[in-house]
């Protein structure tokens, strides 16, 4: 099933690898920031109501 | 507006006014290049006009954050904003002052220093012409960038980062026109584009500068 990538197999794989790493980085970063911000807001709101 | 321009020129030529800043930096860069690239005439003469343009651009970039920062710190900018001069005219006056103290001297110094870079004979006129057409755009775009970052502490580096991409069209067309002129090719298209960008910047950027000054003086 794995297609024989011929002479430029390395190029194709490295391009995919780099792209996927960058995509995961931006998704991960955005997700982490979202969680951190949500938690900070919840504590602030809890303090305000509490 | 003229009063502001004359005041800025007088301030720049006074002690510590920063008049020679751009020129000295330009000299340093032009002198350093042969040490870095090597003295072979063939290489130097080929890249001479490009080096002169890049050095002129960096020299202009260097003296941008002085344009508004000094007036902002001692409150003069606020008083000028409440004076009967429109902020657009203030932007134009500041850009003209920067051009007269930095752009014009560079345009005159560039051919002189071209000798150090083995600039070919017909290159002198083209380097001077392209710089004459291009440096006003550098000053006007730079003034917009300076107004953008006037309220920011240590905004100098940020100013360079913001202005660098805005300078690229002027650099490409300016250096290309100079290179073609030096090589004797027909340089009218890049020259026209260069002049077009400069005209567009001078016509439109004062309004952006004024808007940004108003925001920063809020």
């Amino acid at each position, binding site marked *: 099933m794995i297609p024989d990538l011929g002479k430029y197999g390395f*190029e194709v794989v490295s*391009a995919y690898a780099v792209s996927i790493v960058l995509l995961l980085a931006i998704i991960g970063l955005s997700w982490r920031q*979202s969680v951190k911000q949500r938690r*900070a807001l919840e504590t602030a709101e809890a303090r305000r109501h509490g | 507006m003229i009063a502001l321009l004359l005041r800025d020129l007088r301030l720049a030529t006074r002690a510590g006014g920063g008049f020679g800043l751009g020129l000295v930096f330009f000299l340093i860069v032009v002198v350093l290049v042969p040490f870095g690239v090597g003295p072979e005439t063939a290489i130097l003469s080929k890249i001479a006009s490009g080096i002169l343009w890049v050095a002129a651009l960096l020299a202009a970039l260097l003296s941008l954050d002085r344009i508004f920062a000094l007036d902002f710190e001692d409150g003069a900018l606020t008083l000028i904003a409440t004076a009967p001069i429109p902020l657009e005219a203030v932007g134009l006056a500041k850009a003209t002052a920067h051009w007269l103290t930095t752009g014009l001297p560079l345009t005159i110094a560039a051919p002189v220093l071209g000798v150090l870079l083995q600039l070919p004979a017909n290159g002198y006129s083209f380097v001077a012409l392209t710089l004459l057409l291009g440096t006003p755009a550098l000053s006007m775009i730079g003034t917009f960038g300076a107004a953008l970052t006037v309220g920011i502490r240590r905004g100098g580096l*940020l100013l360079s980062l913001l202005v660098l*991409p*805005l300078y690229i069209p002027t650099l*490409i067309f300016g250096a290309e026109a100079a290179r073609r002129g030096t090589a004797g090719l027909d340089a009218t298209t890049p020259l026209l584009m260069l002049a077009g960008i400069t005209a567009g910047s001078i016509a439109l950027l004062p309004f*952006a500068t004024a808007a940004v000054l108003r925001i920063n003086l809020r």
Partner: protein
Amino acid sequence: MSLWEYANPKKFMGWTGPVLPWAFGAAGVCLAVGLFWGFFLTPDDYRQGSTVKIIYLHVPSALMAINAWMMMLVASLIWLVRRHHVSALAAKAAAPVGITMTLIALMTGAIWGQPMWGTYWAWDPRLTSFLILFLFYLGYMALWAAIDDPDTAADLTSVLCIVGSVFALLSRYAVNFWNQGLHQGASLSLDKEENVSDVFFFPLLVCIAGFVLLFVALVLLRTRTEIRARRLRALQLREVRT
């Protein structure tokens, strides 16, 4: 209730909450299908061999890099004209996603060009204009970070985005003028029939859909984070004042 009502922060948080997982899900599916289809099921190109498979990353990311800046431009205009906080925050949120897309386009372009050009970077005009776009993104994000007051920051970055767009366009043509260029012809063009052949075409469309959905999902997520940050700041300011 006009469309602008939906841009009010509280309502925005409301309707984007449920939409978010669906957006990420759809993006994931499209990307998986598109990339799998493109990577495994398409034949090699007779000229470029297997490197043509990089098209499924390079073209969508390049498209998104440009469209992200245009979205930021529209959001900046909306902020300046209608003072809508969500559009300013959406522009701020889109910048990191845009810069990532630009990076992907740059890297995949360089890797794809390497076999033909012999080097990774041959100052090809289109790749160079993405390098310039990268600088614009960097400056835009740096300006946001350098200013404390959110409204002033939104105003200044909006003006920078508008002025920057004009110069980005100028750079695009200046770069073409400056170097004739070795870039492959347009893979996707509506007028010219010189389109990439069908077998490559459909997976490419799926990949593009995947990238667009991913962009939308990420911007929604990041905008929600920015709104929460602004809300936290407003609460803290109020606490300080009472």
